[in-house]
């Protein structure tokens, strides 16, 4: 396995006395995607901002290729590309000029910049809009331009903060392809997302953050299994025995019973699954593998945000 290009140890950040990131550790390797997941307010964006130097950590160390970030800030930032969640395009310039202007914020200068811009325009299918204002772009193409801009200087590490939020399904799939392509190019990518399917499909490794802490990390299917087990029972709201089933499951120690629009979702063990089937033979319910929706709900419920 290749060694990590980005290493962070003990990252901690507080705002107004409240700890928003609590001794977080993470690594990211070239040619891999690290997914940073967590409910709103978990500390994902703050973690990202510390990693790319927007805000300094209160504690902890960040290194890029073994270089301590705080001591080699300029060299490290030359290696970093950032695509923020907010639209920070320069609407005073054309699509192509946005790439040229952004490249001017880096030293050493981007080599063969004309060719690099043309290559990015082609790769992200922006060539027809090269001389147009970004105002003419749809949401999906604005996002394409933001991502293209973030790699104009050929970074080694790329931070994508919720890159597909607000996009329609087709545009999301296109963005996935682009991200997958950048991973194949050898970029180390750190991605935050609220979309469960995106995190599962794109991430080589997941880091689940809750209240600023690492609650699980590893391969996506293993992370979910560690936190939620192998099965999730779903009891529909119209099932007459719903309330009795909920009481029964709780009596057997089920602690993560979640109600979503009246529908019960409960992670259960294989033994509980068999017992449930025997106890409520005529009841209607489904069983499926746990997914990140279940994880989010469990974490949000732990935080008191869902009953």
């Amino acid at each position, binding site marked *: 396995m290749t060694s990590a290009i980005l290493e962070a140890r003990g990252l901690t950040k507080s705002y107004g006395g409240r700890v928003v990131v609590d001794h977080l550790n993470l690594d990211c390797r070239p040619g891999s995607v690290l997914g940073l997941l967590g409910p709103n307010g978990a500390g994902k964006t703050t973690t990202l901002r510390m990693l790319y130097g*927007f*805000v300094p950590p209160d504690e902890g160390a960040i290194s890029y290729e073994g270089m301590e970030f705080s001591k080699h800030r300029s060299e490290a930032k030359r290696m970093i590309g950032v695509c923020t969640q907010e639209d920070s395009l320069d609407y005073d*310039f054309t699509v192509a000029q946005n790439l040229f202007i*952004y490249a001017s914020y880096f030293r050493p200068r981007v080599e063969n910049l004309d060719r690099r811009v043309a290559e990015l325009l082609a790769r992200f299918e922006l060539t027809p809009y090269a001389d147009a204002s970004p105002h003419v772009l749809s949401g999906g193409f604005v996002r394409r331009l933001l991502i293209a801009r973030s790699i104009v200087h050929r970074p080694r590490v790329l931070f994508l903060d919720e890159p597909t939020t607000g996009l329609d399904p087709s545009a999301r799939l296109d963005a996935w392809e682009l991200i997958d392509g950048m991973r194949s190019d050898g970029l180390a990518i750190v991605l935050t997302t609220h979309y469960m399917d995106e995190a599962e499909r794109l991430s080589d490794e997941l880091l689940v953050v809750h209240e600023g802490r690492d609650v699980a990390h590893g391969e996506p299917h293993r992370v979910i299994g560690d936190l939620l087990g192998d099965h999730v029972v779903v009891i529909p709201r119209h099932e007459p025995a719903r309330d009795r089933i909920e009481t029964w499951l709780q009596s057997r120690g089920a602690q993560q019973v979640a109600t979503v629009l009246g529908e019960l979702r409960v992670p259960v063990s294989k033994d509980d699954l068999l017992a449930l089937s025997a106890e409520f033979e005529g009841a209607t319910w489904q069983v499926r593998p746990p997914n990140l929706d279940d994880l989010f709900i469990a974490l949000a419920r732990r935080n008191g945000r869902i009953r």
Partner: protein
Amino acid sequence: MSAAESLTAAFHWQSWAVFRRNALVFLRNWRTAVIPPAMEPVIFFVAFGIGFSGYIEDLDYRGAQMNYATYVAAGLIAYTGFGTPYYEALYAAYVRMFYQKTWDGILATQVELPSVVWGEILWAAVRGMVNISIVCSVIAVFDVIGVVDVKVAFLVFMPFLGFIAGCAFASFALIFTAIVPAIDHMNYPVFLIGWPLSLVSNTFFPIDPQSVVLRALWQINPVYQLAEAARGLLVFGDPGPHLVGLLGSTLLFLVPCTVLSTRLTRRRVLGE
């Protein structure tokens, strides 16, 4: 980030990359960006300099008699040299920071915050130079037709005097840019500070404070120093003590205002 780092960022390539970005936007939109704002001092000159001249006797300035239009010519240079960078660093910078998120995009690169601040200061000062150049062109025309009597050759120095003072005015304005909660609140630095300062700094009429305190305050007022340095050069070819006064008052504003505006901008933009 130390105060020294905040100040020395002026010479860093990053500051000039931010400056270049603003300059390129200006060049794309120069017709709307230059002509209307540059007309304001010209209209003031025609209205007050020429309009009032018929009603005001010649003024005595450092032992020489001059008509009011000649007196106001230098005042307009100071008025423009203050107003242009001040409003650029207030409104235009606020739009870039808050509405367009331009600074957020820049700060995700190698460019650090002090360079964003300095890029804005330098750009605002150069904007002042552009508008002063237009005002000087108008003054030169009026000299040819005999409305004013100035040493035209010294007009070429006016934009550079304006750049010096413009840096101070821009750094001062960026303090407000960093702290106003909404663009409407810009009314405070505009109408409570900008307008009074631009009108009562020996720009449109001479002020000779009797109070020692006011005299001292006038000496550290860069608008006053700019007006008097410009007037001395245009009338006598000699700025007197006001070139040194301009440099001194500029530094007196520029150093603390740059450090403070950088700190306040860090809090506003980075939440630090």
